[in-house]
C-alpha cells in the first residue's frame, strides 16, 4: 500500500464542528438561529419512531387542549414540546466541539479484512459526548469494465449496480467521550477489488439524548487507499525450467548468510552474539551486525498487459493477483530480483519496501493499448528480452534476459507463467 495515502497531518485531517481548522470561528448566535431556519447543507434531522409517536401524542393532546380549553392539557402539550426542543438543544451540545478523522490502517488487500480507524476527539471543556455513530463506505475509484452498468439499464438498475460496488458500514460510539478526551473506533471490512479505493466517512449521526430525533451530519471525509491484488493459489510446475547457475545478479538483502552486509544500532531483543564490539567501542553505543542473505538465482517478473491479450477483465484481475502472489512467494524465498511492468524499467526488489512498491504498482496496473505490443505471442511467453518492449528491436544487456517470468492467458479463465517459453506455473 502506498504510505502516502495514509499520511495524516495532525490538524488538517480533522473534520467536524470542533475541528481545529474551525476552532477559531467561535460561537455565532446569528449563525445558529439561521441554521435553525435554513438547515446547513447535508445536515439532516428526522424523527425516529418514538419521535413520530411523541409528535402524534403532542398533536392529539394539542387537539384535546384546544377543544376543551383545558390548561392541564396545555401544560402537558407545552412540556412535550419543550422536551422536543430540549432534545434538539442537547443534540447540538453533544455534537458541538467534536471532531473526527479517518485513519485507514494498512495494508489493504482484496478479499482480506482491512481496518479503518475513526479517531474522535471531544474538544469541549465541560461536557462529554455520547452516542455518536459513523457511517462509512468504501468503493473503488475505477470500475472494471464488466462491472459498469450498461447504457440501456434503467436508473434503478444502474444505481443497484453501483451500489453493489460500495461496501457500507456503521460503527457506534458506545462509551462517552469525556471533555478533552478522545476515542478510536475501528471498522473492519473486506475490499472487493484491487486498485485505488475511496474510503469515505459519509455521515456522523446521533440519537442523543432521548432518541426522538435522528440527527445526521453529512461529512464526506475521504481518504484514498490502494488495495493490493488478492492472493490466489497457483501451481508451480516448472522450477527446473529456470536457468540455474547462470550469471544472474545476486540479491543484496539482509538475511542469514555469512557475508556482512551492514551495521545498525542495537535494538531491544537483539541477540548479543550479533553485537559488533569493535564498532560499538568506537561509536560509544552498541551496534549490531547484519548479514546478507544467501545468494540465489533470482527471477524477474515481467508483466505486460496488452488489451488484445487480456481482453477479459476477470482474467486480467487473475493475472494481477497471480503476479502479486508469486512475487511475494519469491520474495519470501529470497528469489525475486525485480519486476518490469509493461516494458518499463526494471524495478529491483531488495527489501520489504520494494516489495510494497511492487504491490502498489500491481494494484494500479491496467490493460494498455496493444500498439506497442505487436509481437504479443512472443512477449507473453517471455521470449522478448527484458528491458525491451515488445516490438522493440534493440536488445538490452546480455544477462538481464535470464529467468524472466512472463504471463499469458491459459484458456478462457486461467493464467500461466513462463520462463523462456516454458510454463512454470499456472493459476
Amino acid at each position, binding site marked *: 500500500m502506498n504510505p502516502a495515502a495514509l499520511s495524516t497531518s495532525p490538524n488538517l485531517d480533522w473534520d467536524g464542528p470542533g475541528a481545529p481548522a474551525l476552532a477559531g470561528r467561535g460561537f455565532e448566535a446569528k449563525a445558529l438561529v439561521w441554521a435553525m431556519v435554513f438547515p446547513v447543507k447535508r445536515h439532516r434531522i428526522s424523527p425516529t419512531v*418514538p419521535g413520530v*409517536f411523541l409528535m402524534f*401524542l403532542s398533536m392529539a*393532546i394539542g387537539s384535546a387542549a*384546544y*377543544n*376543551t*380549553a*383545558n*390548561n*392541564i*392539557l*396545555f*401544560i*402537558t*402539550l*407545552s*412540556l412535550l*414540546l*419543550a*422536551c422536543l*426542543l*430540549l432534545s434538539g*438543544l*442537547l443534540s447540538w451540545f453533544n455534537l458541538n466541539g467534536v471532531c473526527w478523522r479517518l485513519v485507514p490502517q494498512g495494508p489493504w488487500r482484496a478479499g482480506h479484512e482491512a481496518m479503518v480507524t475513526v479517531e474522535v476527539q471531544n474538544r469541549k471543556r*465541560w*461536557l*462529554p459526548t*455520547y*452516542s455518536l*455513530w459513523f457511517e462509512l463506505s468504501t468503493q473503488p475509484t475505477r470500475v472494471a469494465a464488466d462491472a459498469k452498468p450498461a447504457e440501456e439499464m434503467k436508473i434503478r438498475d444502474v444505481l443497484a449496480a453501483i451500489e453493489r460496488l460500495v461496501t457500507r458500514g456503521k*460503527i*457506534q*460510539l*458506545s*462509551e*462517552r*467521550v*469525556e471533555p*478533552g*478526551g*478522545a*476515542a*478510536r*473506533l*475501528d471498522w473492519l471490512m473486506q475490499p472487493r477489488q484491487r486498485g485505488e479505493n475511496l474510503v469515505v466517512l459519509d455521515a456522523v449521526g446521533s*440519537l*442523543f*439524548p*432521548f*432518541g*426522538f430525533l435522528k440527527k445526521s451530519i453529512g461529512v464526506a471525509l475521504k481518504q484514498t487507499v490502494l488495495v493490493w491484488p488478492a492472493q490466489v493459489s497457483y501451481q508451480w510446475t516448472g522450477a527446473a525450467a529456470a536457468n540455474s547457475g547462470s550469471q544472474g545478479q545476486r540479491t543484496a538483502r539482509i538475511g542469514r548468510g555469512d557475508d556482512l552486509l551492514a551495521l545498525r544500532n542495537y535494538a531491544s531483543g537483539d541477540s548479543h552474539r550479533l553485537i559488533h564490539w569493535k564498532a560499538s567501542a568506537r561509536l560509544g553505543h552498541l551496534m549490531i551486525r547484519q548479514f546478507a542473505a544467501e545468494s540465489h538465482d533470482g527471477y524477474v517478473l515481467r508483466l505486460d498487459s496488452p488489451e488484445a491479450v487480456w481482453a477479459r477483465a476477470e482474467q486480467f484481475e487473475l493475472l494481477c493477483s497471480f503476479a502479486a502472489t508469486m512475487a511475494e512467494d519469491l520474495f519470501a524465498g529470497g528469489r525475486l530480483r525485480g519486476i518490469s511492468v509493461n516494458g518499463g524499467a526494471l524495478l529491483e526488489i531488495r527489501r520489504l519496501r520494494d516489495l510494497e512498491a511492487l504491490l502498489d504498482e500491481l494494484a494500479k496496473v491496467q490493460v494498455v493499448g496493444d500498439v506497442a505490443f505487436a509481437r504479443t505471442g512472443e512477449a507473453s511467453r517471455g521470449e522478448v528480452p527484458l528491458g525491451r518492449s515488445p516490438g522493440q528491436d534493440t536488445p538490452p544487456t546480455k544477462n538481464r534476459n535470464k529467468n524472466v517470468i512472463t504471463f499469458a492467458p491459459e484458456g478462457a479463465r486461467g493464467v500461466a507463467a513462463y520462463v523462456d517459453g516454458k510454463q512454470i506455473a499456472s493459476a
Partner: protein
Amino acid sequence: MSMVNKSRQLNLDELRRLKWLLGGAMALVSLWTVFFLDIEALSLVGVTSAIILAVLIWPELPGKLPALIWKLAVPAIILAAAVDFYVSPDTLPVFIRLAILLVLFRSVSYRRKREDLQLIVLGLFLIVVAGVLTVSLGFAFLLLLFTACALGFLFVINLIDAVETGGARPSEVGTAWTRLSGKAFFARLKSVADWRLLTFAAVLFVTVVAMSGLLFLVIPRFELASGFFLDRYITRKSRTGFTEVVKFGSVSELIKDDSVAMRVDLTDASGLREVPYWRMVALDEYTPEGFRVSAQLKGQLLGAQRVTQTVRGRVTPIKRGTMVGGQWTIYLEPGVSRFLPLPGSFGSLRLREQAQVQSTIAQGREPGRLAWVEGMRMVALRTEAMAMTAFQLDNVEMAGSIPDPNFARLLRGWVHGGEDVRDGRNYDARIMLEGPAGAANEAALKAMVAEITGGAGLSAEEFARRAIAWVQRRHAYALSVQSPAGSGKDDIVRWLESNEPGFCEYFAAGFTVLARAAGHPARVIAGFHGGVLNTFENYYMVKNSHAHAWAEIYDGSTVWLRIDPTPGAGTSGAAATLESLTAQQERDGSWSARFDSLRVLWYRRIVNFDSRVQVQMLDQVKTFTMDSSTAVRARFEEWSKQLKAWRSRPWDMARAGKTAGGGVGAAAVAWLMVRLVRWSWGRWRGWLRPQQFDPVRREAGRQLTRLRVLRKFPEGGRIAGSINAAKIDEGASTLAVVVADLERIRYGRRETWPDARGVFRRAKQVRRSVD
C-alpha cells in the same frame, strides 16, 4: 473501541439497573397521581406501589416467577378489566384501574425498548387523566417529577441502545444486571457522579420547565371550548353537606373540618364592608329529618339546565356605589357541592369552561315560567365537579335581601286561586309555608308563635326580630347537640320547646318553622359565612369550618330577607364591620396559608389562564417593554448630561488626583473581586474533590495556559526578539524545556517533579522576555 482518555462510566449492566430504577420511579409517580382522583382504586394503588417498590429493591424477583405467570398476566388483566367494566357504573375509573394494572405489569417485568416506551405512555395517561380531572397543585409537582424521571429514563435507554448496537453485547435482554448488589450499585453511582454533569442536568431541567412555561404562555389560544368530555365518564359524591338534602348535623360536621373549601380573589377588596354570606342552596321543603330541596324545585332546575359558560345575573341595573369587590374569582374545591356559592346578586357569572349549568335565574328560555323561582337565586352544575370549579362574578352587590315580587303573586295564586298559576309546571309556593305536621307539632308551634308575637299580627321583619330574640333567649350555641327525648313531635319542635343548646342548622330550621307557623314564607339556606384573608397573596380562604346555615323570610310583598338567628353570627341583615372582618384576617399568616397561596398562584396563573388573560399579558409585556425602554433611555440621557457637566467643570490637580485615585481604587476592587472569585472557585473545587486539588499543579496549568500563545511559535522568534539565529534557537530550547517541566508538574507523578519554584520563575522570565 479503545478509549484514549478512559473515564469512569457505568457499564451495560449498571445502565440497565439504572433504567430499571428510573422506570420504577416513573411508574410510582404516575400511580400516585391517582390519589388525587378519589376513585375506588386507592387500595389497588397501594398494593401496586408496594409491589413496584419491592421489585425496585430486589430486581431479581420477577425472574423467579414461572414463565406461565407472565404468559397469563395480560389475559388476566384483560379479564379483570372486562369484569370491572361490567360491574362499575362509571367508565373512566375502569380505564384508570386498567392502566394501573398495566403499569404494574410493565414495571415488574423485564422490558425491552418498546416496552419501556409503553411504560412511559401508560404513566403519561395516568398523569394527564388525573391532572385534567383534579387540577390540583400536587399534580403539577408530580408532573414535573414524572417529566424528570421520564427524561432520565429515555436518556438511559438511548445510552443502552448505543452500547448494544455497538456490538459489545447481544441485544437480548439479559438478567445479569439483576444480580448486582444494590449497595454496590449505589456506591458505583456515587463514584461516577460528576458534579458538572449533575449541575448541567439540573440546569437543563430548569430550562425545560422554563421553556414549557414560556410555551404555555405563548401558545395561541382560541375559544373553541366545547366542554370537557372526561367528566361525563365519572361521577363524584359530595363530601360535604351542601347537597339537595341537609340533615340536622351535617353542617356541624363540616365545621370541624379546617380544610379550605373555596378561595376568592377580589380585584378590589376595599369596598367590602361586611362578612359575606356565601349562599349556595335554598332548602324549601321541610321534612322531619331536616330541610331539603323540593322535588319541584329540582325539576325547575333541571328544566333550566343548558350547556353554557356564562350565566346572566341581575337584569335591572343597580347603583354603581353598591357594587363591591370588582371582579370576584371563586375557586371552589372539588367535593364541596355542585351548587355554586354566591355572595349576593351579580351582573354575570362566567365559568372557566363550558359546562351543563342549572340556574333559577332567567336565561331567556321560557322566562315566564322560570321567573317564579328567580328569587331562589341558585346556580348549580349538573353533577359534582371532579376538579376545582372556577368562576367569575362581576357587578356583585352584597345586599341582605333578594327581590322577588313574583313570589307574592305566585303564593296568592296557589293559596287563593286565580292568576293562572295553578299549573303543575309552576312552582307551588305553598311549600314555603309547610312545617311539622300533626296536631301536637302544630299546637306546640302555635303556642310558641303566640309567645313571640303576643297575639299581634307582625310584619315579617318584626317577627323575625322577636323570633330571633326568643330563640336566642332559650338556646345557647354549641357544636354538640343532644336532641331532647320525646315522641309525637318532630325533633325541631322538641328542640324549640327545650332549652338545649344548638348550632346554626337548629337555629335556622327552628326560626323557619316558627316563621312558617306564623304564616310567613321562609326557607333555610346553606352555604358559608365569612372567610379569612391570606396575607401572602391577598385572597380570601373560605374553609369548611365556615359552613353555615341561616334562614330567609319573605316580607309578604317584594323581597326575601336574610335572617341569621345563630347567636354570635350577626343579626338579621346587620352588616359586620370592616374591623371585625379585619380581625379575622389577622389570624391568617401561618405556614399552611403560605402553602395555600401556592395553590392560588397555580389557579390564577395556570388553571385559569385563557385567551383573555393571554391578551392582557401581552399588553402588559408590551407596556412594560415600552416603559422600560423609555425609562432606560431617560436614565442614559440623564447620565450623559451628568457626565458632560462633570467633564466641563474646571480641572485642577486635586480633582484630577481624586479622579485618578477613584479609577485606581475601582480597578483595585475589580481585581480583588476577580481574585476572590477565583480563590473561592479553587477552594470549592478543592472541597469537592480534595484528591484532585493541588495548588502546585493548578499553578503549573495556569503557567502553561499563559505560555500557550508562545508555543504556537516554535521557532522562538518572538522570544528572542531578534534575528540572531543562535538566540532564536536558544529561546526555542528554553521555551521547550520550561514547557516540558511545567507539563511534568501539571500532569506527571509527584516523584518526578523538578523544583516547582524554579520552573515557575523560569516560565515568568520567558514570558517577560517576550513582553
